[in-house]
């Protein structure tokens, strides 16, 4: 334990948290002790954890602001659904189909990430925020007009309406414009969701602690100094942004395949901001904070159902309180003194 570097230890703690989370809920659910309200939220929690981690890579590690991460999520969601539905007959094993769908979603989201990042990341300043904001809206409107159907001849695309897909009589419409994807087979499982979280965590932590990760952080801290050291700014920024987009796409595919329907409207500006809230409240650049914040803030509105009409008001107050407490020096000192006492006791025991 002592030989391990500080960053490696921190990484292992993160894996540990996720695995403990998984084991506890798996045991609870097999013992029948888990409420259906909570068991229904396990996969969304994992999805939002992945989203928060992905966004933290852009916002915290590479220091750019993305306001359209829900856009990447929707690209992943819809391409994942198309992949899963069109392979329904040829690939019968659901876990394999889910894996293919997630990979398809990640790849397509990565491609859109390249398209967005290539021109924008060359610029200095807040342009990425503006462009991703627009991207989120554009992708929503494109998906609202997109119709995709599948029959024995393969996939059919249309931007007009469902009737102009020219499908054979037995074909199914996979994506039906604003009605979104309907009749999706639910193949996401809690196990696969946790595995995705672990993979994403593995990729991000290894990226951050690698040579490339140090370069990305150097560019964030001082662009001119980094440039003068001969770092290729564009390359490293693209690396962080595209990896983040791919992860958001994977999360989208996982999310969509957990519900029987998914609509483009879901992935709007509000969802992007929600994920940004997870990142900001968890601590910008703090991966563990993102995991915990995403999990708690996803469950919180459900816990507050007993407040009925005042639910969202209480939710907002909780958010404000968290912001105040985490930024207040006295509160910090108080928490520090408590944890300090625990550490001392632990030290005495050892």
């Amino acid at each position: 334990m002592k030989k391990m570097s500080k960053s490696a230890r921190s990484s292992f703690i993160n894996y540990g948290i996720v695995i403990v989370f998984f084991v506890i809920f798996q045991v609870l659910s097999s013992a029948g002790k888990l409420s259906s309200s909570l068991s229904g939220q396990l996969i969304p929690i994992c999805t939002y954890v992945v989203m928060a981690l992905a966004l933290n890579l852009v916002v915290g590690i590479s220091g750019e602001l993305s306001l359209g991460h829900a856009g990447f999520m929707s690209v992943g969601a819809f391409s994942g659904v198309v992949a899963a539905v069109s392979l329904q007959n040829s690939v019968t094993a659901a876990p394999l189909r889910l894996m293919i769908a997630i990979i398809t979603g990640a790849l397509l989201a990565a491609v859109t990430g390249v398209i967005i990042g290539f021109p924008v990341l060359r610029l200095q300043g807040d342009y990425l925020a503006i462009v991703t904001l627009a991207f989120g809206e554009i992708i929503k409107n494109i998906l609202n007009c997109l119709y995709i159907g599948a029959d024995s001849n393969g996939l059919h695309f249309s931007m007009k309406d469902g009737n102009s897909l020219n499908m054979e009589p037995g074909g199914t419409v996979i994506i039906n414009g604003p009605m979104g994807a309907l009749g999706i087979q639910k193949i996401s499982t809690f196990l696969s969701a946790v595995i995705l979280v672990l993979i994403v965590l593995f990729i991000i932590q290894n990226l951050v602690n690698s040579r490339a990760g140090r370069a990305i952080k150097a560019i964030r801290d001082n662009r001119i100094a980094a440039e003068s050291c001969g770092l290729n700014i564009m390359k490293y920024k693209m690396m962080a942004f595209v990896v983040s987009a791919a992860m958001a796409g994977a999360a989208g595919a996982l999310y969509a395949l957990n519900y029987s329907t998914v609509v483009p409207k879901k992935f709007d500006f509000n969802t992007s901001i929600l994920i940004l809230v997870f990142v900001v409240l968890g601590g910008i650049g703090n991966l563990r904070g993102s995991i915990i914040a995403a999990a708690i803030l996803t469950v919180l509105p459900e816990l507050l159902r007993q407040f009925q009409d005042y639910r969202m008001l209480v939710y907002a107050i909780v958010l404000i309180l968290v912001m105040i407490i985490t930024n207040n020096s006295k509160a910090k000192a108080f928490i520090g003194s408590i944890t300090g006492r625990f550490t001392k006791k632990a030290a005495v025991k050892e």
Partner: protein
Amino acid sequence: MKRKLLAVLLSAAMICSLTACGGSADSSSADTADTTTDTATDAATDTTTDAAADTTTDAATDAAADTNADASGEGGSLTGTLKLGVVGPLTGAAALYGNAVDNGSQIAVEEINAESADFQIELNAQDDEHDAEKSVNAYNNLKDWGAQAIIGCVTTTPCVAVAAEAYADRMFMLTPSASATSVTEGNDNVFQLCFSDPNQGSASAQYIFDNKLAEKVAVIYNNADAYSTGIYQTFQAQADTLGLEVVSTTTFTDDTANDFSVQLTEAQNAGAELIFLPIYYTPASLIMKQAADMSYDVKLFGVDGMDGILSLEGFDTSLAEGVMLLTPFSADATDELTSSFVSKYESANSETPSQFAADGYDCPYAIYEALKYYAANNGGLNVDGMGYEELCDILISVFTDPAFTVDGVTGSGMTWTAAGEVNKAPKAVVIENGVYVGL
């Protein structure tokens, strides 16, 4: 070391807060249950329930007489307490619909509870913010509460998501207002109380054609909305079959619902005499305002989403003069059932009930009637502690029984097909002097 401990502490706190949810949900639901029974007993003194009670018992006895062959169970009574969950948007952009359904169903439950102390209904409404994810959460929350059947969801997209969950769980669902066919498709446990979208679209085209309301028709619809697009598609298909000329089809999205001058100008230039608006009332109110501003005198024809326009705050109702809409419910109908419901709703909520409120009112009655029908034919039924799977099979068998009919405020003699769609006659109304008048 300190960080490690902190992490363990935080994860422990997280798990505690998560598991706490299971326990606290119970106590909160018990509270709501108490309040519902309280209000129910209060309502027991109310004597205006006769109208509803009479018609319903008649229907039940008639139905029971039809199946006399099943002699074993004549006169079986219905007992116990049924837990009904309502899922709908109580907050957010679609809150008006969810609250209307909730208020309507509360009135029905108060009436049913006042009828007899043997059979009581507990109602629990949960908010879904018109979002599929939140809706599944709300549904799961109701399952934890012990719901035995669900009234919902109010809006289409959440309903599709919840229907799949309910289908897997075998929970009976009766949706008051989710009108898309995808809600019932492949789900034998989901039934609709409202018209499905294809019915609304084709019925509107048929109505316009049959009554020769216009030669040239324009359509403005929201192409970012499942409901609006669904109705448009079937309207267009039916118009093509009938030979009704659609001269202009223009669209908008929720983000561009602030200005309709382009769409209106196009319709005007194409010479449309009537504009079909398969949209919700908020954008529709703006269309009326702008059409009046550009002095474009055109007939407007809406569907059930237009309902509620007269109670929109800050809307000049004179603009809606002459607007026609297809709706199964009109608040100024003179029959006893409707007027009793309207007066109760008005006194409880100080507003005129919309079609959604009426749908919400009919839902508990439909389930109540179905259970009574079953009890009458099978020598009684006690729903206390009955699992939702068992109740689901019972309700499906009754709802698909052609002899089972329900008379409600949104239509009399409602029957259901095996696919879950309702059969009832559509009503067209026109707005005159700020009120609906039947056509």
